[in-house]
């Protein structure tokens, strides 16, 4: 309960801060639309030449892209800017002030800075879904929608856990503040469904760095093509992943000795 109050207070603070810069709000929103177009155009060119790629038709591939755009919005709108500040805190030695606060430190650092204009990404993702399902010809059923919603939770959980893991590295090696950038650019791979990759890469993107779980599985759920066993495994796997990330975060906090000592 207390955690929820803390979260809502932080959200309000972030939105209030962002609303002070109204021009930036408009500019950043427009940029989000531009980058969405940049993500769409290569796909349009590919499917201008081919009917299906790696077993996916154009509208099906759009569903994957929709999840990608939404999750990229979550990653670059909340997780990255907040966790970037942790790295800054570690370097300047101000993390002690965060750790002293009477709330869970992981909660405090992971939502400390939110860029509200990134809701444009969520709206764009919704638009892509609507367009894709118009092409397919029928809307997803309630069951498919709720399964997709469940997998979305799992996807965000895994995304968040990876970001926390990356930041935990910052406690050990301070000079890696751009590791998060590296992860952001690796995340670009998640715009394609997993079957695009073959051999070793397919395994890596499913089990080691579970990008498939973030976009391919939720898309399959919406399309009604995901079997129950994979869905359950994905949900369990994501909770396992999150708990491991939490444990690693706690142990690296314990080992943290601040800048001066």
């Amino acid at each position, binding site marked *: 309960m207390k955690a929820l109050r803390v979260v809502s207070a932080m959200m309000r603070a972030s939105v209030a801060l962002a609303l002070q810069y109204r021009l930036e709000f408009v500019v950043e929103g427009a940029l989000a639309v*531009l980058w969405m177009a*940049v993500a769409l155009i290569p796909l349009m060119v590919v499917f*201008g030449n081919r009917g299906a790629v790696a077993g996916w038709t154009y509208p099906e591939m759009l569903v994957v892209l929709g999840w990608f755009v939404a999750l990229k919005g979550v990653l670059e709108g909340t997780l990255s800017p907040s966790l970037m500040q942790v790295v800054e805190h570690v370097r300047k030695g101000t993390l002690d002030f965060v750790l002293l606060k009477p709330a869970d430190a992981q909660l405090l650092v992971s939502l400390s800075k939110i860029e509200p204009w990134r809701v444009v990404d969520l709206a764009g993702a919704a638009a892509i879904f609507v367009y894709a399902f118009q092409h397919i010809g029928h809307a997803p059923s309630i069951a498919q929608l709720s399964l997709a919603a469940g997998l979305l939770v799992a996807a965000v959980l895994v995304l968040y856990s990876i970001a926390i893991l990356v930041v935990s590295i910052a406690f050990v090696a301070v000079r*890696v503040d751009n590791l998060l950038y*590296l992860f952001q650019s690796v995340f670009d791979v998640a715009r394609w469904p997993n079957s*695009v990759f073959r051999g070793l890469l397919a395994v890596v993107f499913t089990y080691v760095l579970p990008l498939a779980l973030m976009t391919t599985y939720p898309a399959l759920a919406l399309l009604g093509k995901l079997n129950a066993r994979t869905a359950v495994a994905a949900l369990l796997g994501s909770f396992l992943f999150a708990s491991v990330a939490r444990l690693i975060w706690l142990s690296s906090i314990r080992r943290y000795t601040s800048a001066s000592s």
Partner: protein
Amino acid sequence: MSVRAALRAYPQFLKTGFASAVAYRAEFLIWMFSTNMPLVMLAIWAAAARSGPVGGYSQRGFAAYYLCALLVRLMTGAWIVWELTMEIRQGVFSLRLLRPIHPLWQWSAENLAAIPMRGIVAFPVVIILLWLARGELSHDWFFWLLLAPALLGAWLLYFLVQAIIGTLALRFESASSLFEAWLGFSNILSGYLVPLDLFPSAVRVLAVALPFRFQLSYPVELMLGRGTRVEMLELLAAQWAYVAFFFVVTRVAWRSGMRHYAAYGG
């Protein structure tokens, strides 16, 4: 400040720039590795070409194209726009102006001096390219001769555009957003994401005339041996015409920005 003084100081600038690239090597390498977009695009095109060539590209052809694109991007990087906008906002920029040498000289040296470090990342890409798709590369020595001035021109275009947009930060707060918008267009129209000849003809006609092409697609076309010698020479001339044009714009933007500039708190 004379050009001769700048040229005398230039070797030292290069040395300092190289030293700082070496000092921050871990960060630097991570930055390099995050340039992976050509490989992401290669994945989808390779999957599309499994059942046969697409628009004249086989799987091997796509591999050659995107590895060359990756090479050009790695070797022609510049980041002056971020430094300019940050220094102007923080007011550190005034200190640069106090030095008896034009700041752009120093920045260009810093950006150029990083190229040996970039080569460390680019080298394995070259090996993979030669091993995977040697047959797709140009067999004409003349094309490889043209590649050197073409790469220099591509780098200059990138650097000058960044300098122009960065200079705008003297007037506008959101110059870095403007650069991001420019990057968005450049990704599409320079051939970075999709080979230009796969676009519908209306887009291709536009892309071929705009400066974006000369920043990436043109050097890649040289490496792949597209077109004839004469065509490629003409394109080189066009590229350097754009370089000259952007050079003039940089000077104008810089002068007018300077007249406008009155440091923060000043």
